[in-house]
């Protein structure tokens, strides 16, 4: 490579280091998952082309630093042979992060890695006004910090109370972390405040009689979050979505909105602050035929 186009290299996940002639090579990681074989190839590549070190980024990213300019093509080819792609940078949809989800984690409500693969397949590396991050948490414990992402997803489970089997023991009220459940023994009622419910399902799991059953279950979306210099927590949008396909369609619509309304180098959260969240809600309602 005679003339080095740093901008093009950065777009392709090769980031120029402080040290002249060296690059940190960002890899394509989906939902924090690599096979053992891929991991071995990353280790081999770091030893062969870098200085034998690997950097794990804040968002489940993997980078091989210290790769000289003349080895960039070779490291890409070497990794490609093991099924490891290089990452992206710049104004694109970035690494889709995810927890281990309901197949591994006892708290998991949704299959977060499966959704990460679907979202990545559809949107990874696609151009947008500024970097755009998607993070998927399998449940309300929110290990993947949904609200810190441009679009965050959380597994969500809401209770539905049945009078018949209820013994009015008060356990649901006692375990509710957001105090959304109220038991009234005199009137023989248990009520759940939908605005206060955080979708953790603790009341369902703890109920000894099964009176607290599963009402709504699915995917809860948050929009406009970011960290960095000026952090901002994303806000809840839409109703609970039922399938991964609905989530992908919602993200598609959100990206359409961002591409239409966002200015160059304006983070999605800033776009929403400028246009108002209700503008996004109306756009999504029209696009997805749901109530905002």
């Amino acid at each position, binding site marked *: 490579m005679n003339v080095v186009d740093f901008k093009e290299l950065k777009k392709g996940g090769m980031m120029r280091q402080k040290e002249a002639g060296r690059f940190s090579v960002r890899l394509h990681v989906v939902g924090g998952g690599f096979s053992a074989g891929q991991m071995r190839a990353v280790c081999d590549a770091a030893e062969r082309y870098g200085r034998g070190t690997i950097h794990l980024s804040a968002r489940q990213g993997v980078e091989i630093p210290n790769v000289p300019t003349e080895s960039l093509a070779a490291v890409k080819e070497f990794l490609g042979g093991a099924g490891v792609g290089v990452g992206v940078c710049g104004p694109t949809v970035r690494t889709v992060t995810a927890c281990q989800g309901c197949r591994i984690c006892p708290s998991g409500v949704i299959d977060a890695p499966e959704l990460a693969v679907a979202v990545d397949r559809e949107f990874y590396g696609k151009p947008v006004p500024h970097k755009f991050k998607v993070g998927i948490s399998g449940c309300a414990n929110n290990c993947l910090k949904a609200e810190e992402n441009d679009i965050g997803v959380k597994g969500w489970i809401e209770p539905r109370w049945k009078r018949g089997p209820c013994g009015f023991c008060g356990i649901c009220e006692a375990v509710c972390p957001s105090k959304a459940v109220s038991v009234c023994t005199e009137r023989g009622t248990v009520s759940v405040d939908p605005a206060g419910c955080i979708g953790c399902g603790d009341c369902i*799991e703890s109920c000894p009689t099964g009176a607290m059953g599963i009402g709504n279950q699915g995917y809860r979306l948050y929009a406009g979050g970011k960290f960095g210099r000026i952090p901002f927590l994303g806000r809840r949008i839409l109703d609970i979505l039922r399938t991964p396909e609905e989530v992908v369609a919602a993200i598609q619509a959100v990206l359409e909105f961002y591409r239409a309304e966002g200015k160059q180098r304006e983070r999605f959260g800033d776009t929403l602050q400028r246009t108002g969240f209700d503008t996004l809600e109306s756009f999504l309602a029209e696009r997805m035929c749901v109530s905002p």
Partner: protein
Amino acid sequence: MTPTLDITKDVCPMTFVKVKMGLAKIPPAGKLNVLLAEDALKNVISSLKQEGHRVSGVSRRESAFLLVVEKEGERP
């Protein structure tokens, strides 16, 4: 008389371990009273349900809860 296991001073996973050990001493379909703090309710009850036991009674004891746990299985 139904034995009572007090795990109000324990934290997870010892709450779970002690209930499991307590139930090991009870015959199938036998009863064990478990006195526990609010914080332990979710994990203890969900693991009891997962292992096929039943919580057949609940009452409050000041800041704690007393569960009547029925061990899974048929009476010998």
